[in-house]
C-alpha cells in the first residue's frame, strides 16, 4: 500500500494485458458457445448494459454523484440514433450504420452539457433529487411531443438500411450474430476508453471531488466543473449505449427515458459494486440475467431483484465485486478451506429458504393475477395447487424450517469469517509490503 510502490514506472503491465485479452476472447467466443437466438439476444443486451452501467459508475463510483435520471442520456441518445437510422432508410442521410452509436453519444454529450449544468449545481442528496426531477421532466415531455418521440408506438428503423458494411458481401448487420459483434466491438472500445479515463488527471481529480470536494477546491479545482465534465462524459457513453440499443432493437419508445431504466442501471451498477472498475460489468451481466432470463419464468422477477439488491445493500455494500475480491484474498492466504463447510451450510440452507419464499410468492401471485388459468402453478418444475391447504402448509413449513437452519448456519459462518478477517488484519499489519 506504500505510495512509492505505486509510483514505479511500469511500461508493461502484464496482468492488465492478460485481463483485457481474456475479456476480448470472452466477447468473441460467447456467441459461439451460447449459439441459440435467445442467448445471442441476451448477450447483446448484456454488452449494451455493460457500457450503460460503466457510464453510470463514472458518476456514482468515481465522482460520487448518485443519479436517478441516467436514462435521460441513454434514452435521448437512442432517439437521435433511431431518427438517424430512419433517415438513412429514407435515403436522406448518408452515414454508416456501424457508427450510429456516435450520433447517440453526441446527443448524450449535448444533453449532458445542458442538464449537467443544472444538476451539478448541487451535490449529494440534492443532486439525486434533481436528477430524478430532470428524468421525470424528460419522460413527461416524451409523452407531449409525439412528433419526435413517436407517441405510443415509438420510432422504428431498419438496421440493414445502410447496405453492405465496408463493401463486404453478406455483412449488413441483419443477422443477430453480426449485430452482436458490432455491439461487442463498441462495448470493448468503450470499456477501454472508460478504464483509461480513470487513470487520467481528470479521473483522479473526480475521485478527489468524490472523497473531499473542499480539499479539491483548496488545491485549485472547481468541484462543480469537475462534476459537470464527468456528467458530460458519462452522458456520452450512456448515449453510445442508447445508440447501440437503437441499432439492436430497431425501435425506440418512450419507455427508453422512463424512470425504470434509470433505476435499473442504478441496480446493475450497485449489484456489481461501484468501488472497482469491473464491478458494473459484473452487475450488468447479473442484471440482464434477472431482467431477460428470469422474467421468462416468473412475473415476480422485479421482486426477487429488489430483495437481492436490498440484501446486498444491507450486508455487502461493496457489491458482488468486493465479495469476490474478499474471498480471493482469503483464498490467496490459504484460509479458504476453513470457510468451505460454513459456505456449504449457508448457501444450502439459504437456497432452501429462498426456494420456500419464492414458492409462497409464486402461489400468491398466481392467485392475484392468474385467475382463469387454473389453480395449479409450477414452481421449480413441480406443480402446486394453490386452492389446497397442503401447498401453503408445505411452503410455510419450508420457510420456517430452513429459516431457522439458515440463521444457525449464518452465525456459524459469521464467527469463522470474522476470525479470518482479524487474522488477515494482523497479517497485513505485520507484512505491509506484501499487501498490494
Amino acid at each position, binding site marked *: 500500500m506504500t505510495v512509492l510502490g505505486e509510483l514505479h514506472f511500469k511500461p508493461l503491465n502484464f496482468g492488465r494485458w492478460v485481463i483485457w485479452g481474456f475479456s476480448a476472447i470472452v466477447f468473441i467466443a460467447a456467441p459461439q458457445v451460447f449459439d441459440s437466438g435467445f442467448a445471442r439476444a441476451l448477450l447483446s443486451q448484456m454488452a449494451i448494459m455493460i457500457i450503460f452501467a460503466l457510464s453510470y459508475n463514472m458518476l456514482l463510483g468515481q465522482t460520487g454523484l448518485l443519479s436517478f435520471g441516467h436514462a435521460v442520456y441513454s434514452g435521448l441518445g437512442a432517439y437521435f440514433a433511431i431518427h438517424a437510422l430512419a433517415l438513412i432508410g429514407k435515403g436522406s442521410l448518408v452515414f454508416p450504420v456501424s457508427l450510429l452509436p456516435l450520433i447517440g453519444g453526441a446527443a448524450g454529450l449535448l444533453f449532458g452539457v445542458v442538464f449537467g449544468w443544472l444538476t451539478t449545481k448541487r451535490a449529494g442528496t440534492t443532486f439525486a*433529487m434533481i436528477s430524478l426531477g430532470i428524468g421525470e421532466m424528460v419522460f413527461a415531455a416524451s409523452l407531449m411531443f409525439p412528433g419526435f418521440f413517436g407517441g405510443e408506438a415509438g420510432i422504428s428503423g431498419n438496421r440493414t438500411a445502410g447496405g453492405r458494411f465496408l463493401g463486404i458481401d453478406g455483412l449488413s448487420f441483419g443477422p443477430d450474430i453480426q449485430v452482436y459483434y458490432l455491439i461487442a466491438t463498441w462495448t470493448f472500445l468503450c470499456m477501454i476508453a472508460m478504464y483509461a479515463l480513470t487513470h487520467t488527471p481528470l479521473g483522479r481529480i473526480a475521485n478527489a471531488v468524490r472523497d473531499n470536494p473542499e480539499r479539491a477546491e483548496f488545491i485549485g479545482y472547481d468541484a462543480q466543473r469537475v462534476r459537470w465534465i464527468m456528467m458530460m462524459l458519462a452522458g456520452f457513453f450512456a448515449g453510445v449505449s442508447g445508440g447501440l440499443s437503437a441499432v439492436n432493437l430497431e425501435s425506440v419508445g418512450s419507455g427508453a427515458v422512463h424512470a425504470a431504466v434509470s433505476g435499473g442501471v442504478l441496480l446493475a451498477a450497485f449489484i456489481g459494486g461501484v468501488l472497482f472498475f469491473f464491478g458494473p460489468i459484473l452487475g450488468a451481466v447479473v442484471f440482464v440475467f434477472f431482467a431477460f432470463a428470469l422474467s421468462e419464468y416468473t412475473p415476480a422477477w422485479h421482486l426477487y431483484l*429488489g430483495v437481492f439488491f436490498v440484501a446486498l445493500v444491507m450486508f455487502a455494500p461493496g457489491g458482488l465485486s468486493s465479495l469476490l475480491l474478499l474471498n480471493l484474498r482469503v483464498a490467496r492466504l490459504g484460509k479458504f478451506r476453513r470457510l468451505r463447510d460454513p459456505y456449504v451450510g449457508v448457501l444450502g440452507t439459504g437456497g432452501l429458504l429462498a426456494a420456500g419464499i419464492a414458492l409462497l410468492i409464486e402461489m400468491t401471485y398466481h392467485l*392475484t393475477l392468474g385467475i382463469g388459468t387454473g389453480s395449479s402453478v409450477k414452481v421449480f418444475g413441480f406443480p402446486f395447487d394453490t386452492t389446497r391447504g397442503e401447498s401453503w402448509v408445505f411452503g410455510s413449513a419450508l420457510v420456517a424450517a430452513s429459516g431457522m437452519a439458515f440463521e444457525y448456519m449464518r452465525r456459524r459462518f459469521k464467527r469463522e469469517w470474522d476470525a479470518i478477517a482479524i487474522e488477515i488484519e494482523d497479517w497485513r499489519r505485520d507484512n505491509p509490503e506484501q499487501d498490494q
Partner: protein
Amino acid sequence: MNLELFLVQLLNGVSYGLLLFMLAAGLTLIFSMMGVLNFAHTSFYMIGAYFAYQLSVWIGFWAALLVAPLLVGVVGAAVEQWGLRRVHKWGHVPELLFTFGLSYIVFELVQVIWGRAPVPYQVPSELDRPVAWLQAAGITFPQYRMFMMAVAILMLGALWLLLKRTRIGLVIQAALTHPEMVEALGHNVPRVFMLVFGAGCALAGLAGVIGGNAFVTEPGMAGSVGAIVFVVIVFGGLGSVAGAFIASLLLGLVDAFGKTSSASLAGLLSSAGVELAPQTFGYPVLSMTVAQVAPVLPYLMLVLILIFRPRGLMGTRES
C-alpha cells in the same frame, strides 16, 4: 374564468397542496433528523391507501382512518429498526439506496397481494356529496375534499404542538442538532430516531388513507406522487419545513390551475397582435396549451429555482 370556477380550482389546489405537505413534512422531518432522504416515503403513502382499502372492507372507513396510519407507522418503525439502522454504518448513500430498494420491493409486493389493477377504494357515502353551504352560493365542491383539508390541518397542527409544546418534542428537536448531548443526558437517541421515522411514515400513511380514495389507489401511485414530493422539498429548500409548506401549496395550485387552463404562447401572441400559422417555426410548441404541458410544470419550476436560487426557497447554503 368566472369566480365560481376560480374558487373551486383554488380549493382543489389547496387540498392537493396540503396532501403534498403531509408527505413533505414527514420526509423533511426524517431528513433533518437522520440525514436520510427516505426514497420509500411515498411507498408508505401507498401502503396507507391499500391498508385503508382493506380495512374499510373489513371494519369500515372511520375505523380504518385511525388504524391504517398506526399500522403504517409500525411498519415504518420496523423498517428503521431492522433495516435502516443496520445500513447506517455504511454511510448516507447506502441508506438512500436501501430506501430505494425498499420502494422497489413495496411496489412489487403490493402487486403480489392486491393485483396490478386499481382497487375500488371509495369515498365513504357520508361524505360523497357536495358541500351544502357552497352549493347554496352556486359552487359545487365535494365534501370529501373539505374533509381532507380538515384532517390535514388538524394533523399538522397537532404535529406542530407536539414538536413545540411538549417534552417529547423538546427531546426530538434537541436530538436533531445535538444527538450526543441528548444521549449523554440519558435519552435513547436511536429509539427517538425510530419513533420519528415511524411517525413520519404514519403521517405518509394518513395521507394515503385520505388521498387514496380521493385519487386512485393503484401500484403506480407511489411513483407518480413521489417525484412531485421530491420537487417540493428541493424547491422549498432541503430540510426546511416552512419552505416545504410554501412549495406544497404552490405546486398544488399550479397543478389545479394548470390542468384546466387553455392559455398558450400562440394565444398570448395573437392577443398581442401577432398571428401565427401552423407553418411558423416552433408552432407545435407555441400552440401548446398550459393544460397540455401541465405534467412538466413542476419540473420546470424545479429547473427555474435551480437557476435563480440553487439552495431552494428557504434552504440554507450548502456547507
